[in-house]
């Protein structure tokens, strides 16, 4: 077992680093920006990724990508995260839509969508979750009714990142209400004309998610991906890509969260308090375990394995360390964190509040533990 970059990996890492250093030269620290400014830089950043030919880094060459593997993508994401690069505004397009269309799309669908994603002209969002179906995704109720030449869709979606910028949606809808819940679902590459998008304000004031209301929205047959009634299988592909891409740079955020709380304590003269030292010891263990676990997961994937249920352990560890580090930073603040006009206090509180979502989004903490119980420990299903 070896944790080093190979020679070629190292060369690639250096290439990526040089490009990032140059491309990020005029990009301000995102943590200090308003949400609209962050969104502006996300768009700029997406354009630069596309122009720099990074958007399809791990897509096959035949589809316009660079044909590199998940490790290369991980190296790119790590190096970008370490430098505090903006989130690219079409992450859903690059990381979920493109790979899913490559895996399940027709030639026509691939030709229609992939170039626009690589060029950065076609933005995507993911319409899976619904107000009534959170952890229980397959209970979704958005209904697609057969009409001439396509489907008429009614329902509501929620937690849609970037819906207000997207023109296309990875949409799950129920096309057969009488089939078992996993069988009656179809996956659409839906145009978003006719979607009503409403921003959801988060508790930290950001509006990174949206609700979407579909009221007799027409989607043509040509936009069915993977066949009518096969939506659940196709969705599992997307979810696997989502988990995979999540693991690529989660650890960077964990490390940065620990860095920040340590820096704050040093600045406040609290870093020699042994209770604090012990806490940092525990946070460090967890944050490093996320990093190493991510490397091992990537290694297994690259060796041809499928990321196992241990991914859930990483997610759970990551959420815990980020939540705990960010809470501690708020509590170490001069006024217990509650005077938001204090030096850096608003940003610390924003991060603490944002982190509360980490045990909810991308599979709740409860779901992760269920997965570990069922698939690692072979305990019976508890839900």
């Amino acid at each position, binding site marked *: 077992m070896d944790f080093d970059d190979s020679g070629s990996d190292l060369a690639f890492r250096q290439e990526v680093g040089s490009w990032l250093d140059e491309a990020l030269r005029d990009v301000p620290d995102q943590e200090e920006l308003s949400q609209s400014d962050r969104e502006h830089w996300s768009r700029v950043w997406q354009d630069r990724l596309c122009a720099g030919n990074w958007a399809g880094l791990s897509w096959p060459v035949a589809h316009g990508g660079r044909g590199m593997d998940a490790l290369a993508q991980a190296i790119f994401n790590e190096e970008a995260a370490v430098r505090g690069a903006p989130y690219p505004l079409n992450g859903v397009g690059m990381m979920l839509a493109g790979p899913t269309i490559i895996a399940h799309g027709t030639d026509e669908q691939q030709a229609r969508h992939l170039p626009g994603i690589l060029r950065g002209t076609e933005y995507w969002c993911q319409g899976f979750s619904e107000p009534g179906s959170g952890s229980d995704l397959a209970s979704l109720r958005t209904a697609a009714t057969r009409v001439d030449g396509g489907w008429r869709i009614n329902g509501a979606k*929620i937690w849609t990142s970037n819906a207000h910028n997207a023109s296309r949606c990875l949409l799950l809808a129920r096309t057969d209400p009488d089939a078992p819940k996993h069988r009656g679902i179809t996956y659409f590459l839906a145009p978003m004309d006719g979607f009503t998008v409403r921003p959801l*304000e988060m508790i930290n004031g950001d509006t990174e998610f949206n609700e979407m209301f579909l009221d007799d929205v027409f989607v043509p047959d040509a936009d069915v991906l993977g066949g009518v009634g096969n939506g659940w299988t196709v969705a599992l592909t997307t979810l696997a890509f989502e988990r995979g891409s999540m693991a690529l740079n989660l650890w960077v955020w964990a490390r940065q969260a620990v860095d920040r709380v340590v820096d704050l304590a040093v600045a406040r003269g609290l870093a020699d308090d042994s209770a604090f030292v012990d806490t940092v010891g525990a946070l460090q263990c967890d944050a490093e375990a996320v990093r190493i676990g991510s490397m091992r997961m990537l290694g297994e994937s690259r060796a041809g394995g499928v990321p196992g249920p241990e991914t859930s352990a990483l997610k759970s560890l990551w959420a815990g360390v980020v939540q705990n580090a960010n809470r501690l930073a708020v509590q170490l603040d001069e006024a217990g964190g509650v005077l938001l006009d204090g030096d850096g206090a608003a940003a610390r509180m924003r991060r603490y509040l944002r982190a*509360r979502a980490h045990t*909810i989004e991308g599979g709740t903490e*409860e779901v992760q533990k269920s997965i570990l119980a069922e698939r690692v420990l072979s305990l019976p299903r508890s839900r």
Partner: protein
Amino acid sequence: MRATFTPEQREIADAVTSLAAGESSSARDALSDPWRAPGCDGPLLRDFGLLGVPESAGGIGSSLIDLLVAVEALGRRLVPSRFPAHAAAVQLLCGDDARTDPLPGEVLDGRRVLTPAVDVPGTPGWADRVSPDPLVRTLVPYAAQADGVAVLGPAGVWIADPAGSTARQSFDPSVPLADLTLSPPERVVPAGAGARRATLVVAAELCGVAQGAIDLAAEQARTRQQFGRVIGSFQGVAFPLAEAVTARKAAWDLTLYAAWAVDNGRPDAEIQVHAAKAAAGRAAVFAAERCIQVHGGMGITMEADPHLFLRRAFVLDARSGRGSWHRRRTGELRIQARRTVPA
């Protein structure tokens, strides 16, 4: 009867609960609009001002627990009233057993609204421990909405008109916070147990906040369905809420006992107050975080209510000595007590 609420205490709880239930202003209002006095503000200040005030300070023999019962009921619904702050200010002023002159009548009957100032910028504990007094205070609630400030300093307590006031951006906009600069006081009275009494008012509100967050979380757990069942039937959801119940009960019991110990001049009053404030802050933050979690995605939106409990919990945990400081003081005093015991 020993260790039970008196009928009067039950009546106080019922009366305040009714007032709170009938209140149309909420902590949410202040998210979009400047703080305004809720309808119950006047009745609370007018009719409940003698709760917990010793006779030596102009009271009628009401116990501190009487007051805490009222404040806890307000905390449950996050009522954005000045009453808890005013009551804490009054308590701050009447901690000296040897006091002979009553507090001003206009304070006791709520015509003159006070607010307490017991935290010094950059220090985690009570202002009476910072000497020389820098004459600045922070985390002062409702400063612009009060008619005077009850100040704690190393020399004692006094009522002040602040020389300067700077509104701060409060994490809980329904509790406006300010920094104050003060002139040197002309006359102070001994603080006695004032800081302890005032701090227990905050602890009681925290216990209420914890209970309110638990109630909201339980309601969600009883109604939200996933996988064909209400989520409260999953132990993975239910057990953390049971832990919140346990933490909140511990905090409330500690708070009640500490109030009794302070009122009765018990030797363990000091450690009990620190334990109560530490436990109450922890219980409230934990309950609010769990309330968010139980609400799933909705829990992290502004439109759902869990974050309102989190805001209040943090603001109160920070005030009147931070929770982490109270916890450490609890440990220090416990260890100190054992050092003096023959091994």
